[in-house]
């Protein structure tokens, strides 16, 4: 079912391939929680992070180490071959010679695809500028499957839907599962028209609103994202907008019993800390699920028999 050499974008995943990754992640979850494994013994994963990352970098590292493999790090770009002007193409050719797979985060769009053209080993895209971040989407799908349901799902994507690469990929992937998607954002941060048109062309029900209160009682999943202050030149305008997309336990009073709240993190103030203790909060589980999902991808790409 899984014949990929690289993981670059969600668009390259079929529904069946997504299912196979999620099933594999479920079978590996005990190892993500600490059960001993030597599945990746003798294998080395190289982490090439040209931009700061906490969760993605550390969860890849955890995934590889918990499966008994080793990790090498590019380290800060300063003082490395990058600062001497080495091309990305050369960097991945060299480091591809040291490792069994490369994880790359880079500020330029298309960088992971370029890396895949030069790397002798599989490349996993951990974020290419405003482009793609497929492992985030896969862990989001895994969270929805585990904590809610992927079939007949009603989901609201909330916040910055214009620049947020996470929600673009997630919306696309959800369209493969026939989800009912509500887009909730301020007018200036609406999801771009070509992405909406693409979703509609796949038969996905998409509706748009600025009013979070209008949808909160009718969805299974509330997927929150951060509205970045720098998107608004006027701080007063930012405060006004941001306060409309902030959730509290009181705000969720009429919500469905099984409503789950997700967030790719880090959050700033779009989810009040008092929500953490409610049965709706799932963002920390979501963050943890990055480990089994990344384990699954590593096993499927470079595990024995892959």
């Amino acid at each position, binding site marked *: 079912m899984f014949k990929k050499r690289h993981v670059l*974008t969600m668009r390259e995943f079929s529904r069946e391939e997504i299912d196979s990754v999620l099933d594999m992640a479920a079978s590996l979850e005990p190892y993500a929680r600490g059960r001993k494994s030597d599945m990746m013994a003798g294998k080395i994963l190289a982490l090439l992070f040209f931009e700061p990352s906490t969760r993605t970098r550390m969860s890849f590292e955890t995934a590889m180490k918990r499966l008994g493999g080793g990790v090498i790090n590019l380290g800060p770009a300063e003082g490395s071959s990058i600062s001497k002007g080495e*091309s*990305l*193409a050369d960097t991945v050719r060299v480091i591809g010679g040291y490792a069994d797979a490369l994880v790359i985060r*880079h*500020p*330029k*769009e*298309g*960088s992971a*695809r*370029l890396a895949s*053209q030069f790397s002798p080993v599989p490349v996993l895209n951990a974020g*290419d*500028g*405003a*482009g793609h971040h497929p492992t985030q989407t896969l862990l989001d799908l895994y969270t929805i499957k585990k904590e809610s349901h992927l079939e007949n799902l009603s989901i609201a994507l909330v916040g910055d839907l214009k620049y947020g690469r996470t929600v673009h990929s997630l919306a696309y992937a959800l369209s493969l599962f026939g989800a009912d998607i509500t887009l909730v954002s301020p007018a200036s941060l609406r999801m771009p028209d*070509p992405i909406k048109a693409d979703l509609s062309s796949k038969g996905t029900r998409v509706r748009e609103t600025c009013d979070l209160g209008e949808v909160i009682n009718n969805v299974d999943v509330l997927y929150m994202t951060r509205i970045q202050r720098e998107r608004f030149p006027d701080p007063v305008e930012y405060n006004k907008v941001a306060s409309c997309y902030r959730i509290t336990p009181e705000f969720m009073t009429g919500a469905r019993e099984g409503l789950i709240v997700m967030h790719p993190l880090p959050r700033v103030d779009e989810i009040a800390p008092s929500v953490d203790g409610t049965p709706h909060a799932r963002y920390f589980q979501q963050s943890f699920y990055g480990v089994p999902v990344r384990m699954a991808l590593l096993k499927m790409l470079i595990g024995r028999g892959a």
Partner: protein
Amino acid sequence: MSEIKDVPKGLRVKPINNGTVIDHIAGGQALNVLKILGIYGITDATVSVVMNVESRKLCKKDIVKIEDRELLEEEVNRIALIAPAASINIIRDGKVIEKRTVDLPDEIVGVVRCQNPNCISNTLEPIKSRMLVKTKNPVLLRCIYCEQPLTDRIAEYLI
């Protein structure tokens, strides 16, 4: 066989004996066609350019004649990026020996730059730009690296 039907012989352009005549280029695009063919700056080629003459097929058209060079099919097809109605006449000994229309290939390599300034293809990496042709009329290209579409102002992004 006459070389160009719309423009009477001897009026604006002299017939050529050997080479290529590119006719029915959308008015004003001739210089971009030359750019696509790699003819710009200092060149040894003998080239005639006629711009914005009246045409039965288009309102206004340009014509380019390149002497002693028969364009290859892949060169011809790139012209479709900015002149999808162009017709190509290969001339030998004063006669049209072949007429071709242009047809964009499925992928264009090293001809059009991605319009996204943050695309990896616009850096010093050892790669050529690569654009998938999503639709041919109107022309819609998509960068294979960053997936940014390019449809308007393609001429501005010619390399």
